[in-house]
Every structure is written in C-alpha cells, then in structure tokens.
C-alpha cells in the first residue's frame, strides 16, 4: 500500500526522504562504478515493464478479488539490488507524479518501503541463500514465496510505523498492525507465487539472465559492517519512535500480581541483603521506571486541551470566505476563450 501525504508529518516524511535519497545516491555510485552501459536501457525498459505489469490484474481464487504484481523482488532477481532499487524508485516517482499514487512527500516513505526491503533485505538475505547456486523449480518457488512474504510484511509494518509516528491518524498502533499485516500476508503469498512462476520461466528460457546476477555479487562480499550499521539504525528507530507508543498498562506479570495480591508489586523486605541491594540499585539507576523525568511524553493532541477554535463561528465564516475568495480568483484569472 502506498503511503499518502495526508497522513504524514513533515518530520517523518523528511526522515524517510533522507533515507531514500541516501539509498538512491549510494546505488547510483555503485552502478557508476560497475560501468555497464547496457544496464541503463535495461533498467529503463524493465521499469516500464513493471509499470505495465502492475496495471494488469488477475483473479485471486478464493476471495474473488483481483491482485497484481508488486515486482520489487522480481527486479532484484533480474537486476541485482542496486539497479533494482533505482528502477523501483523511478517507477514510484512516475506513479506519484502522474497518477498521484502516494504523495510527493510520501515518496520518500514509499521508495523505502517498497524498494529497500525487497531489494536489500528480502533478496540478499532470504532469496539468494535459499536458492543457492543451482536453482531448481521448487527451490525458486519456495525462495520467492518466503522472500516476498517477508519483504511485504516489513513494508507494511513500515507504513504502520510511519503513520503512527506522524500522529495525524488516530488509528492506534495495535489496530492498524492487526489490519495491515494479515492483508499483506495474503498479498505476499500471491506475489511470491507470481514471482516464482516468472523467475522459473525466465530461468528455463534464458538462464544466462539469472546467472549473470547470481555471479555478480557473492554473498560473502557484503561487508558485515554495513549490515550491523543497518541493524543499529533499526534498533534506534524502534527504540526512539515505537517506544513512544509503549502501552502504560501493566504487563502480564504485573497484572497477574495485582490481581492476586491487590497491590502493584510485592512488598520488599526492609532489612538485610535484599534491602541493601535495593538501595544500591536505586542510587545507581538513572532511568528509574524507564523515564527521564516526571514530564510525560504525550503527543500534543491530548483530549481536553484548549482548542484554538474557541471562536468557532468566526472560524467557519472566515473559512468559507477564504474558500470563496480562492475559487473566485481562479475563475477570474482564467483567460476567456482566445481567438485564434
């Protein structure tokens, strides 16, 4: 699913734009180093192919609805991660500009969600190891299925994170996740099936296409430093953003204790080793209870705050007036029919 501008805050949009722009620059540098001029028209044409293929639908048997190919994983298999990422990004740019599919600010999010996960995570870490060096039909099918499902789950989860972090939508994290993940599981299965079918076909018809990519980058050449950096960034992101929305309800153990004893935690003994260690812990801990200070990290839109729309009648009148002025100016400025 494409992310929309209307649900995005500038902070989240800007961050994802930075991430996507960085990835595009990195991939461009990599491709330039490879110096394969044949790749340029290939990427362009495959991008157009992806575009066309995405517009053709097929029926999904049990549901009666229709689906179409996403294509990220397919491109990664055919082109390699860097070229695939650039191609996917370009298709998304065209979709955003011409079909208003996802906004311009959300483009950063969409490029990351739909490009980074299939090309840089699902393909090298799931598809390639599973397929190995001697692909058979079943291996391709299984690898494609698992990689597609994981890639789409990650993409869908990012959409949830970005929406919730932006704070424009009131949909709670848990509800949104429980809606998005199952839907994208189904979509992932379909994507895996189609990708597997296409890759198998291509491998039978023109095996050199697949093999040229397989040999280009042996998995051992991936610097583990980059992988670690990626995981660190992910951990920071999760710790920074997601923790905001950590539930304040008691966790399972606390809840059980409260039910049994009627209190928050069991009372600690005041004497002896236990007390000494507890005192030590209190003096050492600088994040008691996982908070810095007493101030709560609540999103600004807490219900019950003063609303700036106190003078609501004036606001509505003014709003209607401004709308009218805007439209009127548009009508007035429009040139009359020009005589040839």
């Amino acid at each position, binding site marked *: 699913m494409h992310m*929309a*501008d*209307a*649900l*995005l*805050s500038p902070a989240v949009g800007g961050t994802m734009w930075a991430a996507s722009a960085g990835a595009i620059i990195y991939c461009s*540098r990599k491709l330039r180093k490879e110096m394969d*001029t*044949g790749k*340029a028209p290939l*990427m*362009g*044409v*495959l*991008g157009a*192919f992806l*575009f*066309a*293929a995405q*517009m053709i*639908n*097929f029926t999904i048997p049990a549901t009666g609805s*229709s689906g179409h*190919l996403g294509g990220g994983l397919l491109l990664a298999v055919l082109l390699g991660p860097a070229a695939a990422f*650039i191609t996917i*990004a*370009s298709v998304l740019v*065209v979709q955003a*500009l*011409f*079909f*208003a599919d996802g*906004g*311009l600010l959300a483009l950063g999010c969409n490029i990351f969600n739909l490009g980074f996960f299939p090309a840089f995570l699902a393909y090298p870490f799931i598809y390639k190891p599973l397929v190995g060096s001697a692909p058979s039909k079943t291996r391709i099918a299984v690898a494609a299925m698992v990689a597609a499902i994981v890639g789409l789950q990650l993409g869908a989860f990012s959409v949830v994170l970005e929406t919730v972090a932006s704070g424009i*939508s*009131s949909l*709670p994290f848990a509800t949104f996740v429980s809606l998005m993940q199952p839907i994208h599981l189904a979509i992932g299965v*379909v994507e895996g099936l189609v990708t597997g079918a296409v890759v198998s*076909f*291509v491998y039978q018809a*023109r095996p050199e296409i697949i093999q040229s990519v397989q040999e280009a980058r042996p998995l051992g050449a991936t610097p583990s430093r980059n992988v670690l950096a990626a995981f660190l960034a992910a951990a920071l992101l999760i710790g920074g953003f997601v923790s905001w929305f950590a539930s304040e309800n008691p966790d399972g153990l606390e809840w059980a204790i409260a039910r049994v004893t009627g209190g928050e935690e069991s009372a600690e003994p005041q004497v002896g080793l236990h007390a000494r260690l507890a005192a030590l812990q209190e003096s050492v801990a600088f994040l008691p209870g996982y908070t810095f200070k007493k101030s709560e990290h609540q999103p600004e*839109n807490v*219900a*019950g705050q003063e609303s*700036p729309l106190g003078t609501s009648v*004036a*606001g*509505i*009148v*003014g*709003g209607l*007036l*401004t*709308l009218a002025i*805007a*439209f009127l100016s*548009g009508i*007035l*400025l429009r*040139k009359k029919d020009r005589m040839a």
Partner: protein
Amino acid sequence: MASIGGAVKDFRQLDLLATGDTGVHRLDARAKVLVTLVFILAVVSLGKYELAALFPFFLYPAVLMALGDLPVRHIARKVVVVLPFALMVGMFNPVFDQTVLVRLGPLGISGGWLSFASILVRATLTVGAALILVGITGFPAICQALDQLGMPRIFTVQLLFLYRYLFVLSEEGGRTARARELRAFGKKGLGWRSYGSLVSHLLLRTWLRAERIHLAMLARGFAGEFHPRRTTRFGGREFLFFAGWSGLFLFFRLVNVSQLLGTIVTGVLG
C-alpha cells in the same frame, strides 16, 4: 487499479497538458518544483485538528490551474480517484477520537471528525499540487530540474528512459491483456498461472528489446550519459514566483487567515 488502457490515456492527457504555452509553463522548472515542495511541506506541517487554516491554501491550485489553463474537472477527477487510501485510514479517526473540540450551539464536533476532514483536505491539496506540477511543467523538465538540483545523473537517466518506454510497454501490455481477456469467456483473468505466463513472455520480449535498444544507442555514440539540450535560466521571474508563493505559504502557515477574516467580518456585521 484502473484498467491499463484508461491509465495510459490519463497519462497521455496530463503529458499533453504540459506542452501548453502559458506564462507559468515558460517558467524554469526548478522554481515550480521548489514551490510545490514548499506548498506540500506547509500543508502537511499544520496540526492534526486544523481545518479552516487549510482553506487559504486552495488559492495556489486555483490560481495555477487558471494561469496554466488546466482543466479543473480532469484534475479534480484524478484527485478523487486517489483519495481512497487516505480515506480508509482517516475514517477511523472519528471512531477513536471522540472528545468534543468545537461547539456550534447545541452541536458538538469531535476531534475525530475534525481530523478526518483535515486529512481529506490535505489529501486534496497535496495530490492536486503534484498533478498541477506535472501539468504545467512536463516530466522531462522536472527530471532536468531535479538533475540541476542535485539528483544523481544515473537516476535522471533512469527516469527519462522509463518515461520514454512507458508508452511502448503499456501498449504492448495492453494488447496482451486484451487478448487474454477475450479468451477468458467473461471470467476476469483466468487466475495467476496465466498471469504469470503472460508476464513472463512480456518480460522476455522486454529484455530482448532492451538489448536491441542498447546496441542502437552504442551505434549512435552513447557512452553512459545524457546531455540536456536546452538550458533555461533561473532568472528574476522565477525568483519572484518562488519568493512570492513561498512567502504566502509561510504566512498562511503562521497566521490562521480564515480565523482572521471571519473575526473581521463578524466584527463588522455584529
């Protein structure tokens, strides 16, 4: 997803609009791209519950559509088609956010409804701005502008190639899809297996086409880079355009003009 034929037709129409020759069309693309970005940032940075503060921003699409001679109904239709995702997520807001923020006499409007309306208005504004940008600038000019603003050359080349072959491949894909449809006897598509086969054949033809294109380009001296032919200047008019609109958006962002106007009017009347 729209049918492939309809989508390509829409695509061509918007592309055709960009060949117009009005004052805004003739501006350097960089100014227009930057103004669009400022517009979207300003709209999106407003608070969750702001509704009336968004209305002044409609001035920009209205004026630009008029000056650029863009058909309003066509663009409005495209905006409406694309609202669903924002709608689907936004419609949960009234469910989860029920605290009343605004009172109109006996009627209380909850924060959820306000933010839902705000989401819809934002979607209309941002999507409209993107479509208008393409309508008055054209895709190649936008690519060139982004290139001049620092986008990696390889990405620019990729975008231009994609744009060039979009029409070719959409037509080919459309022909194949129609052939399949005609053989489906009323069922919609014959399932994923035939789709996989269709896509695979299309892919192979695409791959061979790419090889032919590459050889043709090499024969004409392609060495990996495109060189833009026409260079436009970012002159005084462009600066005025950019500074004027950006200043206005900043003003709209910081001052709730609707509120201001309403207070003045009700003050005068009351």
